[in-house]
């Protein structure tokens, strides 16, 4: 049988996430929009309310709530601030490779502090050569005795200035790729410039510079040559799931702000919600939101059951981000002139939606993955 209801516990997790979003994040959104900086209170709040412990098992100090819970959290946070949800989703993404591929020692060393939010994690794969072709990676790791020396530059790395623990994808041979756990403070490890995106203002993004960075051998994740496996597993499941979760919250926000505005905006003596042209847009958003939820939560539930779900995640990520972008456009249209004014959130939704589309793989890449599975 198919179960289409969240458990009582999941509903309460949603409530807790909404409380965090509305009490802690919402008041800071204008400042994030204005300064494009990440407020400390947000990162602190995530730790205090255990938003970072969701996917970490109890034996490593986490809550082991799994991926459906993770999507609930991301949806609720994104409803208020996609930028914040994006940072959170990438913190989870940084934890994931250690969880899946880490040795017992690595897990014990890193996970408890990450679960408490005392330390933060991210992954660094993308380089200037493009994120969708990881094998073009130029960051090099050279074995020198009991340690590796890393050189290279990673770009568009979310949370790069915030994360203490970073899982970095490198080349260790002509066709051999390996990932390492790097830590802030290692010699030759330096977050570089800040990137300023069109949307998701306040979500930290930037480059990571590795200049003769010395990394002990025991910081390798998996074996030499496991790099692609580690990177792809993280991105194709956890990353796409996270982006879909972010887009769900954005869709929900679009629907809420559109219905509110349409009910309140009076033209020719009646609310514009009475106009069918407006109703069609609203109906479209409502249906897409429901479909988006089904796709995303099903994929997350598969993940929780340990089933392979890379294609389902690609489907969810593609559908939800595209639907969110259309919803954001419709939201701006429904708002008329106010849709392009900074005082209304509609314009922020539009800009944030656009940032979601290339994140964790463009819509084109998603369709390639989906088509490949369909054509098999």
């Amino acid at each position, binding site marked *: 049988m198919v179960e289409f209801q969240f458990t009582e516990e999941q509903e309460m997790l949603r409530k807790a996430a909404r409380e965090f979003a509305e009490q802690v994040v919402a008041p800071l959104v204008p400042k994030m929009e204005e300064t494009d900086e990440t407020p400390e209170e947000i990162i602190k709040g995530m730790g205090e*309310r255990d938003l970072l412990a969701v996917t970490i098992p109890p034996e490593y100090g986490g809550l082991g709530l799994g991926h459906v819970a993770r999507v609930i959290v991301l949806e609720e946070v994104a409803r208020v601030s996609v930028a914040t949800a994006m940072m959170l989703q990438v913190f989870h993404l940084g934890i994931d490779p250690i969880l899946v591929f880490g040795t017992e020692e690595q897990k014990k060393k890193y996970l408890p502090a990450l679960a408490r939010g005392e330390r933060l994690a991210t992954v660094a794969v993308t380089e200037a050569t493009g994120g969708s072709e990881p094998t073009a990676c130029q960051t090099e790791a050279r074995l020198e005795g009991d340690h590796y020396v890393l050189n290279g530059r990673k770009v568009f790395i979310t949370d790069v200035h915030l994360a203490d623990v970073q899982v970095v994808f490198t080349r260790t041979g002509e066709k051999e790729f390996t990932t390492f756990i790097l830590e802030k403070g290692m010699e030759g490890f330096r977050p570089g410039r800040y990137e300023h995106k069109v949307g998701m203002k306040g979500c930290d993004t930037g480059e990571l510079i590795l200049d003769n960075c010395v990394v002990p051998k025991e910081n390798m994740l998996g074996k030499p040559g496991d790099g692609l496996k580690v990177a792809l597993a993280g991105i194709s499941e956890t990353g796409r799931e996270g982006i879909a979760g972010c887009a769900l919250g954005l869709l929900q926000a679009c629907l809420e702000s559109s219905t509110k505005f349409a009910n309140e905006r009076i033209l020719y003596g009646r609310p514009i919600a009475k106009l069918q042209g407006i109703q069609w847009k609203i109906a479209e958003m409502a249906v897409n939101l429901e479909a988006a939820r089904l796709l995303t939560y099903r994929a997350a539930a598969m993940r929780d059951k340990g089933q392979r779900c890379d294609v389902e995640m690609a489907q969810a990520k593609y559908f939800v981000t595209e639907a969110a972008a259309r919803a954001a456009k419709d939201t701006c249209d429904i708002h008329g002139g106010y849709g392009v004014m900074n005082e209304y959130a509609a314009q922020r939704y539009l800009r944030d939606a656009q940032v979601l589309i290339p994140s964790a793989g463009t819509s084109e890449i998603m369709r390639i993955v989906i088509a490949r599975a369909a054509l098999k």
Partner: protein
Amino acid sequence: MQILVLVKAVPDPERANEITLDPETGTVKREGIPLVINPLDRNAVEEALRLKEEKGGTVAALSMGPPAAEGPLREALALGVDRAVLLSDRAMAGADTLATARVLAAGARYLGDFDLILCGAESFDGGTAQVGPELAQFLGLPHASYVTSAREKGGLLEVEAKVEDGRKKLQVRLPALLTVSRELNRPRGLSFSGIVRARGKKVEVLSLADLGMDPSRAGVAGSPTIIGDISTPTTTRSGEIIKGDPEEVVDVLVKKLTEAGVV
């Protein structure tokens, strides 16, 4: 310290603008608006948990309400209370503050002896500030209202409470009831670990029969007050909307206000 905290389930204040009165039936229409813990009761829960952390003991949460009030009580469990009890019965419906206080008193007695009872000074939806003091009368306890700080010292509570243009300091004998103000503390947020820790804890539901209470003392039957007419306010003002860019609207407004002789 054995502490009882009263938790009222109220419609989410964030969505207060969706709440309306039905002029036909005279009832509050709040369909679809989720119930949450009354904001000031969150301060009461926080104080109870803080005292427990400091002095040891247990915290029980008590509420009277419809079955849906279980949700906010589950939240109280997730926040860290040890036990949550909902008094729910058709015959409790439609209670005014006095009948509410009477039923809560029966619930409190049923649960045992408490050193301290805490509740929000007023509820977000009713705002009468009556239930706390009335409950204290039914239980024969001393009380203090609108408390802004509380400290236990040698079996006495040193309490500060609000008055117009200032504060008063009181010494309250235990056991006692305090109704609390927002200034008392900053309530903790609902945390995921709290939700996980509360797994398996159930909200206990008690009926009038469980309390051994006569239905004529509860609900509408036990309420001295009734709600008569409901009306929507009529407006007598012109409601003229001034349009234009900021400079234009200010021109028009200042002209009108000058003509009216109010600036």
